[in-house]
């Protein structure tokens, strides 16, 4: 079991009163899972994803990551957990524009203290894996949207995470490019990394083996392929 979430809720205190973004969600993510979360805007998909990725903490309920109670971990330990066991892919890529594709992918490895030789080998493997070996020395501004998302996926996979979380990974891409990214994510999952995708894209969600439909912060129903 990678993630075991029991009755997790996330409440935000707003000036107009508290808002429950995620309500009593119970969810298990196992090795090799391929999950898509769908639902209308504001239903709590991204908030749930952030809690699964340990960047946000539930206000109630328990969330165990690889058996560790996330709410009991210090900020530094949570950072370390994210660095080594979780990969993130964002809608807006968030590549660092001053770094090349190679350097962007190398960042998490460097932060994890991986040696230079091993880093270089791993970066080369990853860029080859996402089909961008030839663009290694290009900066994000010299890449297309699809290429940037490929680099972001390579970066997310740098430290061989157990779980890859993707928040609207095709949201800024055209249909054809989105399809390529979807295929790449399928491959990542097929190679053993558990995958959770938050998306509005029905086609992308349809590729998952488990589909969670959310409404008003709760999982309305789960479908299994």
């Amino acid at each position, binding site marked *: 079991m990678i993630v075991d979430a029991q009755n997790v809720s996330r409440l935000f205190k707003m000036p107009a009163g508290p808002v429950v973004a995620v309500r009593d969600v119970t969810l298990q993510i196992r090795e090799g899972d391929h999950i898509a979360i769908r639902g209308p805007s504001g239903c709590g998909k991204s908030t749930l994803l952030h809690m699964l990725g340990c*960047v946000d903490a539930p206000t109630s309920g328990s969330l165990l990551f690889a058996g560790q109670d996330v709410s009991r971990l210090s900020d530094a330990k949570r950072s370390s957990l994210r*660095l080594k066991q979780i990969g993130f892919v964002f809608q*807006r890529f968030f590549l660092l524009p001053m770094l090349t594709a190679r350097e962007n992918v190398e960042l998490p490895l460097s932060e994890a203290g991986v040696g230079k030789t091993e880093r270089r080998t791993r970066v080369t493997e990853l860029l080859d894996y996402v089909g961008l070996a030839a663009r290694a020395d290009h900066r994000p501004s010299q890449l297309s949207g699809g290429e940037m998302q490929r680099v972001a996926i390579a970066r997310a996979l740098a430290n061989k995470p157990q779980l890859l979380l993707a928040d609207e990974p095709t949201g800024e891409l055209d249909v054809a490019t989105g399809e390529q990214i979807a295929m790449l994510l399928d491959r990542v999952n097929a190679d053993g990394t558990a995958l959770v995708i938050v998306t509005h894209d029905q086609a992308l969600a349809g590729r998952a083996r488990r589909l969670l439909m959310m409404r008003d912060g709760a999982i309305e129903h789960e479908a299994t392929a």
Partner: protein
Amino acid sequence: MNAVGFAWRSLVRQPARAALGVLGVAAVGALLFDMLMLSNGLVLSMRDLLDRYGWDIRVAGGDLPLQGPRIRNASKTADTIAGLPSVRAALLLRIADARIDRPSGPPLTTQLVGVEVRSAPGRATRTSPPWTIVKGRDVNNAGEVVINTPLSSASHVAPGSTLTLRALCVAEREALPPTTLRVTGVAEFPFSGVDEYVVGGTLATLKTACGGNVEDEVDLLLVTSNGDADGAAAAIRAAGLGVNAMTNDEVVGRFQQAGFSYFRQISSVLTAVTVSFAVLLITVLLTVSVNQRLGEIAALRALGFSRSRVVKDVLSESVLIVGTGGLLSLPLGWLLAAGLDDILKAMPGVPAELHFFVLEREALAIHVSLLVLTALLAAAYPMRIVSRLPIAATLRDEVIG
């Protein structure tokens, strides 16, 4: 990529912002450097001038050298002082105003300095007059003089030629016959102003120029001790000669009380102001930069970068900007100080050899310390922003934005 490398790439990413920060720190740092050199510069420079020729005690008729009545019975007083066991030699120094006639143009108003060394019989004396020969030789006999460089240029007189001078020794308007003096050298007189003309010679030469019409009075006695200036000054005071003996340290101390301390106070205020400007400038630049990159920083945090790591990135950026600007500020400050020094020395009565800005190790150390403090203070607020950045909320806002 470590924090410094990362910070460097962030700066290069926005070269205009980086250049603005570096140039701003360089300009403010140059001012800071100058203020630090100014704060103690006059004191150090004055001390250097006083110590330059080995005379470590000043004996005057008033509270400060050359600012009170003359010393009466000068010969006897000098002999008494020179005879003290703790004293090696005493130098009588008298100053008279004089006019130098020129073949063309108006006469030049000058100062005529006459000196004479006294020491106890059998006591070895190797003393220097209060000037430095830069051309020709020093005076050996009465009737010989050295002149300073501005006078040599203005009067077109070189070593080996003669000078016709009318001294004004007793009354301001008294007309004295001209005296022709032989110029043996060109000298630097450390206490003369940039545009002042000075003639130096023996006390006998001055008396001759004054037509013998001078009392046994001098403006100042310079004394060199046997090594214990404080002891020698105390002995002179105890001798009951009705004079005021001051070691060079005490002279500097009195000048500080009399006016030098204003420079220190002004420089302290301006130092505080310049450091504040530098802190504000870098804080604004870093804060704007951090605010523009909140999404990226949140993404890095989501990818596992620790809070301390992103804080280090911001601090490194601050250190790089302040460090580079600080390095540039040193030559810039030096050039600025040289220009300001020239302007200030052009004020009437300021010795040409006196420097307002003096580089000392302490000033450099304070400069570096203040720049380090600037880098830390300037980074404090943006570091706080990134350390408290809510990752999830920022990522959400970036997508909505």
